[in-house]
């Protein structure tokens, strides 16, 4: 955002500086501590589920990740539906947004919000309204990364 001030008049720049003085400081440290412990706890629960699937079902350490993810998304659906996840989000910030439960929350919240527009256009059309960006950038960056890696390896890398 280097050109942020490019199109601004001097008046706007001066006001921008004045406005900055009054802005409420985000409590970064407090937010980070909250994000840390909530995010950590969510991962802890995920770890518990991983072991549960290893113990009780025929999953190995590697494959247990899939049912764990699905379970976490399921829990996130319940918490979203009962109106708890948005409050958790306000408290924990990234702590609840970064884990896969946050991904689930962004899908589920969009789905239930747009149900009033019908199941096809509302739910179907908007379900990835927020989570779509994660999928798009995940897929595209993975594509680029793997392509580069493959090309390097083909030309006699590693």
């Amino acid at each position, binding site marked *: 955002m280097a050109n942020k001030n490019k199109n601004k008049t001097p008046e706007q720049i001066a006001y921008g500086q004045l406005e900055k003085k009054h802005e409420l400081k985000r409590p970064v440290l407090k937010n980070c501590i909250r994000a*840390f412990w909530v995010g*950590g706890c969510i991962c802890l629960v995920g770890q518990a589920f991983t072991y549960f699937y290893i113990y009780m079902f025929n999953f190995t350490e590697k494959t247990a990740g899939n049912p764990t993810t699905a379970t976490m998304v399921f829990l996130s659906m319940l918490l979203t539906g009962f109106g708890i996840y948005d409050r958790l989000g306000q408290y924990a910030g990234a*702590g609840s947004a*970064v884990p896969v439960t946050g991904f689930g929350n962004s899908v589920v919240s969009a789905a239930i919000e747009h149900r009033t527009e019908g199941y096809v256009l509302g739910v179907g059309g908007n*379900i990835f309204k927020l989570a779509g960006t994660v999928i798009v950038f995940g*897929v595209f*960056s993975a594509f680029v*990364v793997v392509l580069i890696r493959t090309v390097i390896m083909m030309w006699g890398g590693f």
Partner: protein
Amino acid sequence: MLAMFFWAFVIGGLICVIGQLLFDVAKLSPGHTMSVLVTAGAILSGLGLYEPLVNFAGAGATIPITSFGNALATGAMQEVQRHGIVGVLTGMFEVTSSGISAAIIFGFIGSLIFKPKG
């Protein structure tokens, strides 16, 4: 195993703190933050660094959204090994389908049974 829980908590928490810093210090929107993290996961995976992290921290590395980028890249890399360069296109969702399909299924079920509470 107890060490596993401990490190899952710590590493998972730290990844969330990175996300929080992207929110608060870099002032990114949640959408931008998630995109950055997912891309970071894919890059780490390409460098071969994400798998050791998963071995070390278990769910602490697989639950955060970064693992989504890792899983996409891993799937593509496996497929490349099997079928050559075409695998870059075809292998992408080999490993990750569970998160997305679970989100779609539970999202739809959620829309059937819940109303937004506001």
